[in-house]
């Protein structure tokens, strides 16, 4: 396994700010991993995301993408080609007046041949369930639809790493399901995924969860390990997935069941007892 992203002792201070938004961050993400990052508002998640493709460069320490330093002007173009970013607010990510032009913008800049661009547009739109909107005007779509177009725009670049910075926050349940399915499929095909989210349910299938608080990484492990430390999560302003919180109530009331996280597991536990 090679390392996709490496943070070495990274600190970051915003211009005109005295406090560090990130404090001595150290971690590695292996190629092909699905990593969820959670943390309360203001914990440094988005700052961290923007450091992964060199949008921000560290105040201290190094960020490396496939061994390329984000501070190096010679490799920054290769880094950006490898890291696709999807942000919280799709309005800031739309540039063209027709959906297919918007998606074509990235590949065109990479010099992808015309025929292949067409294929990529169709594939990307289908992946996000927006094929019917190929000739629509992005500005007239609803927030959730726009976000799916933004994701398609990133997909069309065929990056090796996809960073989703609360990209599901504005979607309806169906849209979220679709996007999470798309992301899971891409991950199965080898895409490294960093998914920043407030929906704890979306972290259950991750290989690993990183918990941030006050600009530091405070927990890092498999979902099962992280959710077992629920008291700490609570202190960081986070919550358990709904199923786990229901299991908690039952345990508290004296039922002898495991602290499970998924519905299937909870139902198994209850069937065992009743």
């Amino acid at each position, binding site marked *: 396994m090679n390392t996709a992203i490496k943070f070495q002792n990274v600190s970051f201070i915003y211009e005109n700010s005295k406090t560090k938004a990130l404090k001595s961050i150290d971690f590695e993400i292996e190629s092909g991993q699905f990593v969820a990052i959670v943390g309360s*508002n203001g914990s440094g998640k988005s700052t961290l995301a923007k450091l992964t493709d060199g949008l921000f460069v560290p105040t201290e320490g190094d960020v490396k993408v496939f061994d390329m330093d984000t501070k190096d002007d010679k490799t920054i173009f290769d880094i950006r080609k490898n890291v696709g970013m999807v942000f919280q607010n799709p309005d800031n990510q739309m540039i063209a007046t027709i959906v297919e032009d918007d998606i074509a913008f990235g590949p065109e800049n990479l010099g992808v041949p015309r025929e292949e661009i067409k294929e990529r547009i169709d594939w990307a739109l289908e992946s996000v369930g927006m094929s019917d909107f190929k000739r629509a005007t992005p500005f007239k779509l609803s927030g*959730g639809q726009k976000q799916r177009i933004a994701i398609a725009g990133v997909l069309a670049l065929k990056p090796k790493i996809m960073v989703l910075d609360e990209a599901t926050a*504005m979607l309806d*349940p169906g*849209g979220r399901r679709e996007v999470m399915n798309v992301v899971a499929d891409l991950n199965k095909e080898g895409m490294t995924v960093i998914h920043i989210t407030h929906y704890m349910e979306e972290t259950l299938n991750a290989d690993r969860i990183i918990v941030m608080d006050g600009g530091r990484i405070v927990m890092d492990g498999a979902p099962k390990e992280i959710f077992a430390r629920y008291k700490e999560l609570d202190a960081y302003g986070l919550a358990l997935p709904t199923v786990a919180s229901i299991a908690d109530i039952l345990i508290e009331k004296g039922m002898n069941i495991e602290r499970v996280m998924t*519905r299937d597991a909870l139902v198994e536990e209850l069937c065992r*007892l009743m």
Partner: protein
Amino acid sequence: MPINVENLTFTYMPKTPYAKTALDNISFSIEDGELFGIIGSTGSGKSTLIQHFNGLLRATSGKITVNGIDLSKKKFDYKTLRSEVGLVFQYPEYQLFDETVKSDVAFGPKNLKLPQEEIDARVREAIELVGLNYDEVAEKAPFDLSGGQKRRVAIAGVIAMRPKILVLDEPSAGLDPKGKKEILDLIQRLRDTSPTVIIISHDMDEIAGIADRIAVLDKGKLLHVLPPEKLFEMEDEITRLGLDLPETVKIYKALKERGITLPRMPVRKTELAKLILDKYKESKGAF
């Protein structure tokens, strides 16, 4: 009856090639003191609908009355309407603009031309109501606050108008779990002064847990207005509409498939836990 909607139709850019009917012949009413949820996939017309409640959008046809004010008339009292209906948009923190929290929250009451002491009192009250410490934040720049705090300042700006009806478009979207809980607790607290609340939400667990009734929109049409425990019985319909069942209902159904039938379908976590515990005691008692 605070809000009554009869045969409301709204078309964006009518009589042009871009005409798009966003709301199609909608009728319903919202009762006094009701917590009314609105769900529907993105683009179903939810945000378009609520913008009619304070006259930001005018119906293409049909009739809307809000606290007795007939909005289908050519002229009506906008000032009274805007002070009766407080509208909190999606991501309202993007609309903060003033230099200090205090002056941002004071913007609305100032426009009502209230006396200065009244404005000051309302601003203080609104900031405290949303759970912020007035002395701590009043002179701060809104942009120095955290995401959750900024959203609460934006809501304070609406509350300072003392609306009787509070309309919120996805009030907890993008907030961390703690921030979400704070906003939901805040909404409950505000019901003393703004008893009628209308909430758009994409979080089925959240809306099922708080709403008295839920309206379902799809492609501009109003399909259902039902209490959550009735609405979420229709699993196929809910999935077809790009929505989801609350987790409690999914667990209820999964248990039923395995032969454990709870006496009713719960829409709140605590309710589900109680039903399971009752069933458990019953099954133990049988041995």
